[in-house]
């Protein structure tokens, strides 16, 4: 008797329908995640990515954040938590920076927010020079915050310089100067204040 008669085909069809959700959900997981994460972590991360995608946010940075966690030996729960936090920060950055923001600006903005930058500083940067990329100012704010310059002061010095027309190179030199002062033992807030005084003085003298 041929086992591939009508009953066999119906059986195969039912099995296929039952398996379809599993296959579909397995296929929905980015293969880079399944290669480096265990199944439950990969699923949790993929959910965050799917949510971010629905909100129109970039997803590649979230994939990379998960891979970073895997490379650094973090637990699955930690990876999922960190990815979630980054997804939230991307959303906050998107609302603060407005439409037509590039992916690089969103990532830098999310980084600044995660470092503790007030979201109104992102709005201020955008408002100051609407046609210029704000990646460098945001990178500099993040760096100052990571070096424990208080958030308000870090934001004010960078936004102030940006508003006054500082170039990307100017901001990076500003960062370098603050970094050097901190390395030489100055308190971060004092180093930021000194940089601000120097910057303001420079602006006054050139007028």
């Amino acid at each position: 008797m041929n086992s591939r008669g009508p009953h066999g085909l119906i059986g195969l069809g039912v099995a296929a329908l039952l398996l379809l959700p599993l296959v579909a959900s397995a296929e929905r997981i980015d293969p880079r995640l399944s290669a480096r994460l265990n199944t439950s972590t990969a699923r949790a991360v993929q959910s965050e990515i799917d949510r971010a995608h629905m909100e129109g946010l970039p997803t590649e940075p979230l994939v990379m954040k998960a891979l970073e966690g895997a490379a650094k030996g973090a637990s699955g729960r930690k990876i999922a938590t960190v990815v979630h936090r980054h997804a939230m920060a991307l959303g906050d950055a998107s609302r603060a920076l407005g439409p037509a923001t590039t992916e690089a600006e969103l990532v830098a903005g999310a980084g600044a927010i995660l470092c503790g930058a007030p979201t109104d500083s992102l709005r201020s940067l955008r408002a100051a020079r609407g046609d210029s990329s704000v990646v460098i100012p945001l990178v500099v704010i993040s760096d100052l915050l990571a070096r424990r310059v208080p958030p308000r002061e870090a934001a004010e010095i960078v936004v102030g310089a940006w508003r006054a027309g500082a170039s990307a190179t100017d901001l990076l030199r500003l960062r370098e100067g603050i970094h050097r002062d901190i390395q030489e033992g100055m308190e971060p807030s004092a180093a930021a204040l000194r940089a601000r005084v120097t910057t303001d003085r420079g602006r006054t003298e050139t007028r």
Partner: protein
Amino acid sequence: MSESKDPWRRLSDAYRERPRISPEAKERLLERISKTPPPRRSRWGVPLPWPGSGLRLAPAVTAAAVIGAFLLGALVTRVALGPRLDHTSSAGGKTPADSLVLVQFVLTAPGARSVSVAGDFNRWEAGDLDMVRVSPEGLWTVTAALARGSHLYSFVIDGIRWVADPTAPLGPDDGFGSPSSVVVVGGPGAT
């Protein structure tokens, strides 16, 4: 416990007694290993050859050798300035939207036996972009072709220690206990 009368020897013997770690903890570890994808070997990257290094330049970046030498010549200045805002155009003169930009990574690590760069440009795979030690004082370097935009990266020392680039802006707390750095590649148009 040892019969030795020497008190230090008794302490040493006491240390060697089996610790009070539960066997269940070991089984939980093995179970977790069974669910973790096995580690993979892979290589990536465009190491810059140095005399006597025995390294080959990949054909696609042959012209970058000259650029790489120039970058090394400006090393101290570049390190002092911090991050590598690199406006160098890629070899071959491709269109800006598609081009890769050469970026040189440098780290002083005299005690290291190996250093590599891991970041979002190579899926954070430590060991994929190995640096080359170029001086007895412990200067390590590698040049890589990165897409325009901003990237997060770290140095990985001896395969296990993740450190930020001391000359580059710090990235946000990665959430995993290891610092990372930011490099912005390609100039204002890329961001």
